[in-house]
């Protein structure tokens, strides 16, 4: 992963130089030199491939929520992931815009600025990891980075093959505020990663089309045998000091793990990061 990142960054700089010399939208027949990603799963995949990203929606927040792979240093912000600033987008003169299918601004609005590729992650089959793999292939083909794509998928297989000596079922949660939390179940990236690692997701309740459910603390207590895996930002001290929190069966059994931030709606790089963090915890 680190090696791929270095290699790709060098390539990115070279690509940007060539692009500025030729200064053309159509300089590369088929291989885009200026890519804008509006969705973070696509952005992180393109960053991992070393593709020439010029802008990512909500780029500053990406560093806090997605963390790795880091975006190229000069990556610009083009506004919201759901509704970017179209004028800022136009001013960047991209030759490819990558989005997630079914999320945010209708592709027809973007087509007037540059060619658009909208790749699916959350579909009726509810298999985001499989679609994330396919997105790596698609984006690698689109940017002419087949070797990097194969490398990324190989890194995923290595991460998923890592054995974790823990037979507890897991509850993957992220706090929405100090009383409510999101639990990731079937249909989420994390659920697929757990399954691929041979681990069990404890959550058996319903989930929405993004693969999570919003719940209260009492819902966590339904799974006393589970290990609680909290994704940062961690819950506030007021909650952690409360009698109710201490009464949670997972707390009493000492089965609570806190993981650094991982992007919950991510692609293959986030899947790798999640598997690695889980293994290291």
């Amino acid at each position, binding site marked *: 992963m680190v090696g791929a990142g270095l290699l790709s960054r060098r390539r990115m700089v070279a690509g940007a130089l060539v692009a500025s010399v030729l200064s053309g939208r159509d300089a590369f027949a088929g291989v885009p030199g200026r890519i804008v990603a509006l969705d973070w799963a696509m952005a992180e995949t393109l960053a991992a491939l070393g593709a020439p990203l010029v802008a990512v929606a909500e780029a500053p*927040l990406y560093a806090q929520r997605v963390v790795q792979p880091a975006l190229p240093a000069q990556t610009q912000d083009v506004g919201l992931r759901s509704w970017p600033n179209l004028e800022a987008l*136009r001013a960047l003169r991209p030759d490819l815009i990558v989005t997630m299918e079914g999320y945010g601004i209708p592709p027809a609005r973007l087509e007037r600025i540059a060619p658009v590729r909208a790749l699916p992650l959350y579909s009726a089959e509810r298999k985001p990891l499989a679609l994330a793999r396919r997105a790596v292939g698609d984006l690698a083909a689109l940017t002419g980075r087949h070797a990097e794509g194969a490398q990324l998928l190989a890194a995923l297989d290595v991460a998923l093959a890592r054995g974790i000596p823990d037979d507890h079922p897991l509850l993957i949660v992220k706090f929405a505020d100090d009383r409510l939390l999101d639990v990731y179940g079937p249909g989420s990236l994390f659920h697929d990663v757990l399954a691929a690692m041979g681990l069990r997701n404890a959550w058996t309740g319903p989930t929405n089309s993004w693969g999570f459910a919003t719940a209260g603390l009492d819902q966590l*207590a339904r799974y*006393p045998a589970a290990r609680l895996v909290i994704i940062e930002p961690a819950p506030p001290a007021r909650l952690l000091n*409360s*009698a109710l929190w201490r*009464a949670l069966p997972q707390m009493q059994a000492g089965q609570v793990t806190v993981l650094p931030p991982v992007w919950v709606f991510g692609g293959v790089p986030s899947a790798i990061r999640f598997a690695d963090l889980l293994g290291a915890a």
Partner: protein
Amino acid sequence: MRTVFRSALLPPAALIAAVVALTIWTLTVPGAAQDGLPDSFVRAWRAHALVPRVWVALLAGAALGLSALIFQQVLRNPLAEPGTLGVLSGAQLAITLASLGTVTLDPALREAVGLGGGLLALAAVVLLAGVRASGPVLLVAGLVVNLVIGSVFVVLALLRHEYLRSVFVWASGNLSQNGPDDAIALALRLAVLGPVLLLALRALVLFTLSDESIRGLGANVGRLRLAALVLATLLAAMVTARVGVIGFIGLAAPMIAQGLGIRTLQGRALAAPAVGAALLLAADGTAQALGRLLGEHVALIFPTGILTPVLGGAILLGLLWQRRIADRPVQPLAAPSRRPTLATALAIAVLIAAIALSLTETLHLPALAASELWGGRWPRVLTAASAGLMLALAGVVMQAVTGNPLASPESLGISSGAGLGIIAGLFAGGAAAMLAGAVAGALVAFAVVIVLAARNRFAPGPMLLAGVALGTFAGAMISLMIASGGDG
């Protein structure tokens, strides 16, 4: 008269019975959803979450009911309450501003900030309307302040949207508790403020007279009103700080107390908090029951603040249907401007300046040529101008037809009905069904308001009340959908 009174006792008795049953059910922690819970956790859950939650619902509902009653009494307007006068949204905005960047703010600090925001919003309303205003002018000023606060909120949400989720969760009113702190805090504050306000009732009875008569009795009207409003704002702000925005209790509780046939101020001062407490407990019990019954099928939490407009709105619309809400005379708005040409010229000048700026401004994007801006911008400018024009026309027509100076697409619930229709259309048939949904939603909302208004002989008060009830209901449904569609 007696039969009216007798039949009026039935609904509250039924409501109280339902509330008691719901509360007992929520406190027993049974059901498939909680199967397999360890005993130690069930005990802790009941002691630290369920029981405090009942107390918080009762105390917050009572505080909101009492606060609204004082507003309505000293302003002599049945529609003037913390919600319509911007106090709740002012408190909400101030607390949101103060808590940006930190996930949780100390509750006492939240209260102080909320009180400041609520008072500022109220001051803005009073200044806009004029110190002596009490009729429709005050409500229009409240509407304006609420709209301004709403747009500041939207700008804030766009700039700091990473906190949007938790803000929406809090703003939609969530009564879930972790420990007895909120219940104890609310009880202590009510224990101090309640008796003070009940003692002050003797003075507040004066407000059934005109300001001139009160002055004739040697009382300082302005100071009395100010003191009462500050205390009532304090009540509303402390509830907002603890549990978020619980809309509609304030509007509905005193109105229902009146609809029950309670005439004296002393009677209503006891009935309004009682109705408020019962309403909020019923709404919260319904929210918990829905969560428990549907918990196996849907992946979301039902916020209590969303069910209060549904429940309170249904009761209020029922009372309107039975013609139980007495109308108070609404004075006409101030005479139209004596210089219409000047006002019109000014409006046109502002319009032209706004259009010119919108089409040419490149403050943050020097890389785009004017010709490139033009193509993307004229549709937006045209859309915005047309939308404004159509809304203004709709307002003029509605005000003329209903003879009500406050009638507008917003105040009659038509805008919110259209908004709900758009979302329903989006769910049912995708983007193509949005327009049909908007039209259908607006027409249904309009039809309901007109039918209810017709039953009340198109009296201005009941008509606006029907519109507000409907609008808050639709708005509550919209925010439920936003809160459930989580992101980041």
